[in-house]
Structure formats: structure tokens, C-alpha cells
């Protein structure tokens, strides 16, 4: 087990370091001179030179990279060049907001997804199964902005129940922000739901055909007992991995949903940074997302190994 954890951990660390190189190199080859971009075309050469000095742009690339990575690792995330504000408090604030949105979305799609997948598998090939399978297929890959605008048109414009914009107060907690979180969370849930449903359905179908489930049925256990103690325990294994992986996406990949609703999360900060070509901000935000992504993958692997001992030895 320790060996397994060490290997996975090493792998994730390697991925994060390689990703940081990719981010750094990609943002350093941005066409156009950063100093000119920030100061405008009419800045004096002296001013540009001073700025390059300040940003460390005249050092060799490797030195710039190690400086930057060292700074990132020790919590010195620098200043945004477009807002001139410190990056760290901004990113942490957005991270908190993203976590709130992720939590609400999570609370919707995980139980609903597992339930629908289970029902589809138990009523296999019935019309219920067909409806759930085709329905979930329809939502996989449906762009979030399409489902978002449809939800907004129904629930905020026609019915007026929920706000269409979710620009929450930075200090508001989960409870005060809740009404603003519902529509974005449902939008996200609709997209993620399909994966959970399909995963749960296919693994439950597999488990239902195993010998131990047949034995449990033949020895006369009540159907509910068979489902909850024999089937679910085994069929949820792959689903749990999918759920854990989705955390990374929920925290940093919701660029579209957050920008439709104007929700101040991490994804929208990335978009802001990209639109302003704010290189330090792009580097930090993307790096934070990669970290979360890597850690959630690691958690997925761990959970899988804990729940399914066979995997540890392969």
C-alpha cells in the first residue's frame, strides 16, 4: 500500500512540475513585448527597461522559471499586472467561492446521478432505462452556456424565482449566497450528472451478473438488502473515481458557467487573466487549477485502492 501511494504521489508531482514548465514556457512565448503591452505604445524606452527589470524579464529563461516556481511554492504569488493588486488574496477569495459552488453542485448531482444510474441498471432495458440512458446521453457535451441560458430563461425571466446574475458579495457565506448558487450549480450538475449516471449504470449492470449477487438472491435475501449490501458496495467503486476526478473540474474548469452567471469563481478569474493577457495572473491561476486537478486525481487513485484492495498489487 505504501509503495502504491508513493508511486502515485511521485507521478502526480512529476505531472505538476512538467505542467508548470508548460505553463511557464507557453506564457513566455506570448507574442509581443510585455512591457510595451502594459505601458502602451508611447512609453519611453527607459520606462520599458525599468519595468522589464522589475519583472525580471531580462534574466535567462531558466532563472526566471526557477524564481517563479520557487515564489509560487513559498506562497509569494506576485502582483497582477492589470490590476496592480496582490494575486494571493484574490485567488484565495475566488477559490473559496469556487468551493461553495462546487459543494452545492456536488450535493445535487452525486446523489441524483447514483440514484438514476442504479434505477436504470435495476430496470434494465425497460422504458425507464431507455429514458434515463438517452436523456443522460443528451446532456453529455451539451455546452454549459446552452443549458444555462435555457435555465435562466425559465427560472429567472419567466418565473422570476432565482437571480440570473450571481455576482455575490465577497463576504457572504454559503447560506446568504445560496439563492445565487442554485442556477449555476444546476447548470454544472446537468453536465456532470450524465457521467455519474452512465458509470453507475454500467458498473451496476456488471455487478448484477456476478455469481455472488446470484447467490445472495438464491439464498432468499430481500431485494433491498441485495442491492444495498451486495451490489452498491461493489458497483460504486468506478463511480467514486469519476466523482473524485470531477472535483478538479468543478474547482477550475467552470469557465463558461461562471462567466454566464457572472459568478466570481476561479474559472472566471482565469478568463479575466487571459482576456487582459495578465501573465502573472494566468500563471498562478492555471497553476492552482493544475494543483487541484492533480490532487483530486491522486485522491481518486487512493480511494480506489482503499476500496478495492486488488488494485494495490497490480
Amino acid at each position: 500500500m505504501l509503495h502504491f501511494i508513493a508511486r502515485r504521489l511521485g507521478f502526480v508531482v512529476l505531472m505538476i512540475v512538467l505542467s508548470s514548465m508548460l505553463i511557464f514556457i507557453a506564457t513566455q512565448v506570448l507574442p509581443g513585448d510585455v512591457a510595451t503591452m502594459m505601458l502602451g505604445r508611447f512609453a519611453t524606452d527607459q520606462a520599458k527597461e525599468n519595468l522589464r527589470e522589475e519583472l525580471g524579464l531580462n534574466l535567462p529563461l531558466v532563472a526566471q522559471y526557477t524564481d517563479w516556481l520557487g515564489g509560487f511554492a513559498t506562497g509569494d504569488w506576485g502582483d497582477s499586472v492589470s490590476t496592480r493588486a496582490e494575486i494571493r488574496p484574490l485567488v484565495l477569495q475566488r477559490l473559496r467561492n469556487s468551493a461553495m459552488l462546487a459543494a452545492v453542485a456536488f450535493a445535487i448531482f452525486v446523489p441524483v446521478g447514483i440514484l438514476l444510474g442504479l434505477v436504470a441498471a435495476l430496470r434494465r432495458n425497460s422504458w425507464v432505462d431507455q429514458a434515463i440512458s438517452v436523456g443522460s446521453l443528451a446532456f453529455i457535451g451539451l455546452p454549459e452556456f446552452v443549458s444555462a441560458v435555457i435555465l435562466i430563461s425559465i427560472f429567472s425571466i419567466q418565473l422570476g424565482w432565482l437571480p440570473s446574475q450571481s455576482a455575490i458579495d465577497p463576504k457572504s457565506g454559503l447560506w446568504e449566497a445560496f439563492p445565487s448558487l442554485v442556477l449555476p450549480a444546476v447548470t454544472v450538475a446537468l453536465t456532470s450528472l450524465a457521467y455519474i449516471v452512465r458509470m453507475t449504470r454500467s458498473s451496476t449492470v456488471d455487478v448484477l451478473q456476478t455469481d455472488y449477487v446470484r447467490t445472495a438472491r438464491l439464498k432468499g435475501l430481500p431485494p433491498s438488502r441485495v442491492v444495498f449490501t451486495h451490489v452498491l458496495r461493489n458497483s460504486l467503486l468506478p463511480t467514486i473515481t469519476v466523482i473524485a476526478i470531477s472535483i478538479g473540474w468543478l474547482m477550475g474548469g467552470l469557465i463558461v458557467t461562471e462567466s454566464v452567471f457572472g459568478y466570481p469563481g476561479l474559472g472566471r478569474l482565469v478568463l479575466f487573466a487571459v482576456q487582459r493577457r495578465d501573465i502573472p495572473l494566468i500563471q498562478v491561476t492555471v497553476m492552482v487549477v493544475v494543483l487541484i486537478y492533480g490532487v483530486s486525481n491522486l485522491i481518486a487513485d487512493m480511494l480506489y485502492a482503499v476500496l478495492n484492495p486488488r488494485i494495490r498489487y497490480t
Partner: protein
Amino acid sequence: MDGFERDGESSRKGGAADPQDEIMKTAETEDEFASGTPGAHVAQTATHPPAVLPQKMRSLYWHRLKRRPAALVGVIIFCFFLILAMFGPWIAPYEFDVQSAALRLQSPTVQHPFGTDQFGRDILSRVIVGTRNIFLLGGFGTLFAVLIGTPIGLVSGYVGGLVDEVIMRLLDVLLSFPSLLLALVLLSVIGPSNANLVLVVTILYIPMLARVVRSMVLDLKTKEFVEAARVRGERQSYILFREILPNSLPPLLVEASMRFSYSIFMVASLGFLGLGVQPPSPDWGLQINEARNFFSLAPWTLLFPAGTIALLVVATNLMSDGLRQVMLPGVARD
């Protein structure tokens, strides 16, 4: 006479001969052809594979497809959009960029079935002409990813060892970002243009396609017919491209069709964020983003393009899922 028929034939008989087996199978699959063969490519591997899909195989696929109404509907709708993409400018009732102050934000009529937008442009025409961009960007992106990812996967899986390890780790780096985020950062670096959009879709999908091919190669290279070719003294390139590649085609095609349906999502989302096709070219995502401002005034400006994207995405999903069930029956879904 090739291996498929014999294989399909014997397994069907085998299935019928064993009642116990038959019960298990009826629970497992809906059509008799799939019952004995856990995957078409698995059946193929038993004997010497032909270079292309033979007639028999195609009619088998068609036979299975006919039994899946949802997949069939997907294929039909997809073909409809394909025609729009090819002949859009001739089908569209108006020029997509003709503006008219008198016709601003008109609700749907017989002349303008989808209504008009804030510049008085016909929305139906813009939707029809915009189909081409989605198909071209997503299609070429996926195609190039297949063309580059396939040899990478072949070599990586076949050579193995350190080469395989290094290639796979490098591709994993691309997978360690949420894909839209990576697309966004790459586009901000190279700037949004049609060629760059294709490039970004290609870069994003290479790892996934290479992985599928690699896993097929790992499975196939231990098979007897590959061994036999090696003993016969065939060249490496012959073994790779004439023995292994044709047998990797079904999963590769399924993966490519799934990637294509995701690429619609990707291109439309980037358009929505303003990093896709640049105006005045019609782009579905951008159209929806602009229409948000007029929603309460003119909901049709938003609902028709949104509905069109939804229809195309659902159709492509149904099609690629059908393709998976037809070409790889019995193989677990992701």
C-alpha cells in the same frame, strides 16, 4: 472467405447449444450477432486480418445499427447538419451578413422563420451558414488529432519500454489540465483565428487518441497473427500498418467520433467566450453570447441558435454511442 463469418457463425451456434450460456447472453445483449463476439475486433484477432473492413463486416454493422432507433435518429440528424455544413450558403434564404435597420429584432415570421437579430440579419441564415465553421474546425481538429495521435500510439505501444514511458508521460501533461482551460491559455498565446482553433483542438485530442491506439497495440502485439507475421519475417512497418492498425480501427473510429462531438462543445464554448471564430463570420457560440443582451426583448435571438447546438450535440452523442455499441458490443462504456 475471411475470419469474421466463421467466427460469428460458430459463436452463435455455441451460444444456442448451451442453455445456461444462452440465459446469460439474453440478459447481456439485445441482438443475436453480438451474443458470441465480445467485440468485433476481438473476433478479428483470431485469424489473419484483412486490410479494410470487408463487405460482410459493414452489413453486420448496418444490421446492428438498424436495431437501435436512437442511434439511427442521431445519424439522420447528423447527416442533415452535414448537408447544411456543405451547402449552407446556397441553402440559406438570405445572405448571413446583410443588415437592415428596418428589420431589427423581428419576431419569427414566414419570411424569417427564426426571426432577425439586433442588426436585422436573418437568424436562420446565420445558423445555417454557421454550421460549416463548427464542422470545419471540429472536424479538421479531430482529423489531424487522429492523423498525429495514431502513429504516436502505434510506435509508443509497439516499441514499449523507455520510449513508451516518455511519450505517455508527455501526453499525460496535456491531460493534467481541464481541456477548456488549456484551450483558453493556448489561444491567448497564439491568438484566436480559425487555423489556431484547429491547432488547439488537435493538440487537446492527440493524447486521447494516442492512448486508445496504444492500448489496442498492447493488446494486439501479443496475438498469434502478429507473432506469425513476425516469424514470416515481415517488416516492422508491415506488421504495424497492415496487421495491427486495421485491427485498431473500430475503437479508433469510436473514439474519434466521440472526440468530434466534444469538439463541437469546445468550439462553441470558445466562441461563446469570444475566442472562437471572429465576427462578422457567423459563430453559434458568439451568436448566443450577443443575444443574451436582447433576451427579454427578443428571446428567439437566443433560443434558436441554442436549440440548434443542443440538437447537433444530442445527435452526435447518439450517433457516437450507437457506433460504439455497433462496433464494440460488449465492451464497457467509459
